[in-house]
C-alpha cells in the first residue's frame, strides 16, 4: 500500500516550549492510523503541525509526495486534508447549515453528494439544520465537526479524540460513522479510548514526551500487555 502522509523527524515549538522533539510516522492510504499516548504527550500538537497551525521548525511533512510543512494552513486544507480538532471548532453562532456552507469549498455535484451522504450518516444534523452550532449537544457537535471535514473531497482526515466527553452510546455511533468513512478516506485518529482505537485502527503510533516511541499493527498492540501498561496505562 502506498504512503499518503509521512512525517520525518518533526520538531515543533509552541512559543519557547519545545513540544515535539522528533515525531516520525507513515500513514498508508486506506488505513486508519491511530496516535496513542499519555495526556500531554503531543498528539494534538502533531495534528496541528500537519495542518501548520503550529508549524514545524525542523523536519518535513510529506503529503502525496509533496512537502507541505511550509505551506499556509488553508492551502494544506485545500490539498485534501480535513481536520476535526479536539475542541471540535464549531462556529457557535452559525447554524448547522451555515457551518457546513463555510466548510464546502466547492459548490459542485460531488460536494452535494458527499453532503447527502454525511447527513444520512448523521441524521441529527439534518434534524437541527437551522439550529445554532453552539446549542448542539457534545455528540452532535462532534458529528458536525466530522461532517465539515468530510464534505470536501479530502483524501485524509485528521480526527482528534472524537470520543472525548461523549456517552458510550454516542461513542458507538461516532465509531460506526468513522468505520463507514474509512471505506473511502484515509484517517489519522487520536484516540485514548482503547476499545475504540483497537476496533477502528489498522496500525498505531505511540507518542511520548513529544517523540514517536513505538509503532506497529493494531493486532500487535492488542497482544503487547507490556507496551500497553508502559505508555497507555492499561493493564
Amino acid at each position, binding site marked *: 500500500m502506498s504512503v499518503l502522509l509521512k512525517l520525518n523527524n518533526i520538531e515543533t515549538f509552541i512559543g519557547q516550549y519545545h513540544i515535539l522533539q522528533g515525531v516520525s510516522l507513515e500513514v498508508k492510504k486506506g488505513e486508519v492510523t491511530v496516535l496513542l499516548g499519555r495526556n500531554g504527550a503531543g498528539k494534538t500538537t502533531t495534528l496541528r503541525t500537519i*495542518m501548520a*497551525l503550529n508549524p514545524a521548525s525542523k523536519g518535513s511533512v510529506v503529503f502525496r509526495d509533496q512537502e507541505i510543512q511550509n505551506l*499556509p*494552513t*488553508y492551502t494544506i*486544507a*485545500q490539498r485534501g486534508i480535513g*481536520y476535526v*480538532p479536539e475542541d471540535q*471548532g464549531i*462556529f*457557535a*453562532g*452559525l447554524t448547522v447549515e*451555515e*457551518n457546513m*456552507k*463555510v*466548510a464546502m*469549498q466547492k459548490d459542485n455535484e460531488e460536494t452535494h453528494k458527499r453532503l447527502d451522504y454525511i447527513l444520512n450518516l448523521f441524521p441529527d444534523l439534518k434534524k437541527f439544520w437551522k439550529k445554532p452550532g453552539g446549542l448542539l449537544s457534545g455528540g452532535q457537535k462532534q458529528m458536525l465537526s466530522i461532517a*465539515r471535514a468530510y464534505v*470536501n473531497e479530502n483524501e485524509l482526515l485528521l480526527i482528534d479524540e472524537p470520543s472525548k466527553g461523549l456517552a458510550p452510546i454516542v461513542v458507538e455511533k461516532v465509531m460506526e460513522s468513522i468505520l463507514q468513512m474509512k471505506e473511502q478516506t484515509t484517517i489519522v485518529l487520536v484516540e485514548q479510548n482503547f476499545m475504540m482505537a483497537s476496533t477502528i485502527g489498522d496500525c498505531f503510533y505511540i507518542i511520548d514526551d513529544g517523540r514517536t516511541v513505538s509503532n506497529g499493527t493494531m493486532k500487535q498492540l492488542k497482544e503487547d500487555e507490556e507496551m500497553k501498561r508502559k505508555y497507555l496505562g492499561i493493564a
Partner: protein
Amino acid sequence: MELLFNLTLNGLATGMLIFLLAAGLTLIFGLMDVLNFAHGGLFAWGAYSGIWIYSTTGSFIIGILGAILTGFLLGIITEKWIIKPVYGNHVQQILITLGLMLVLSEMLKVIWGPNQLSANPPDYLQGSWEIGGMIIIKYRVFIIFVGFLVFAGVQYLLKNTKIGLVVRAGVMNKEMVQALGINIKKVFMFVFMIGSGMAALGGVLFGPYSGVIHAGMGMEFAILAFIVVVIGGMGNFTGSVMAAILVGLSGSFMAYYVPELSLAVNMLLMAVVLIVKPQGLFGGKG
C-alpha cells in the same frame, strides 16, 4: 412633544453616523483582532474628499460615491502596508495606527488648508417638512435612511453570502476557518475595505449635517465609535447599530438637558458595560 421628537430624530441621525464608523471598527476588531485608531481618519478623509468632489461637480451623489471610493482605496492601502506587518501585536498596532491617524489628519490640512470647510445639503435635501405641526428636517431623515440602508445591506451580506458567512465564522474561530481551506487574509482585506468605505460614507454625510468639517473631526467621532464598539460587543455587528443608536440618543438628550455631562454619560455607560457585561450589552459575538 415637538422637542422630544426633534431630539429623538437628532439622536437617531447622530447614532447612524456613529454606527457607520463603529460597524467597521467592530468587524475589524472582531475578525482581525486589530485595534484601528486610524479609523476616524478615514471618516475625516471621507468628509473632505466627498465634500470637495461635491462642490467641484455640484452633485452630492457623486460626492458620496467619491467618498466611499476614497474609503475603499485608503482601506486597502492601510491594510496592505500598515496593518499587515503588525498582525497579532497590539502594542505595535496602537502605535502605528495612532501614527497613521496623525498623518491622515495632517495631510488633510496640507491638501485642503488648515481652516474648516463649510458644507451644505443639496437643494433637494434642504429645509424641512411640516407634518401635523411638527418640523422635520429633511437632511436628518436622509441620514437615518442611508444608515438603515447600509445596515440592511451589510446585514444581508453577512447572513446570505459565502464571504459574509466566512466573516462571521472568522470572528468566532479564525483558526478553524483556515483549517477548512479558506484564505482568511483575503477576507481581512475585504472587511477592511468595507469598514473603511462605511467610515468615509459617515464622514461625507456628517459634512452638511454639521455645516462644517475640520481635520480633527475624525478623532471626536472615533471616541464615540469606540464607546459603541464596547457597548455593542466587540465583533458584534447588530450590537453596534443598537449601541450607536443608544449613544446617539443619549448624546442628543443630554446635550439639550445637561450639556456638560453629554460625553461623560456615554463614557460612564461604557465603563458600566465593561464591568458588568464585558462581552457587550447585546449578547456574544455574531
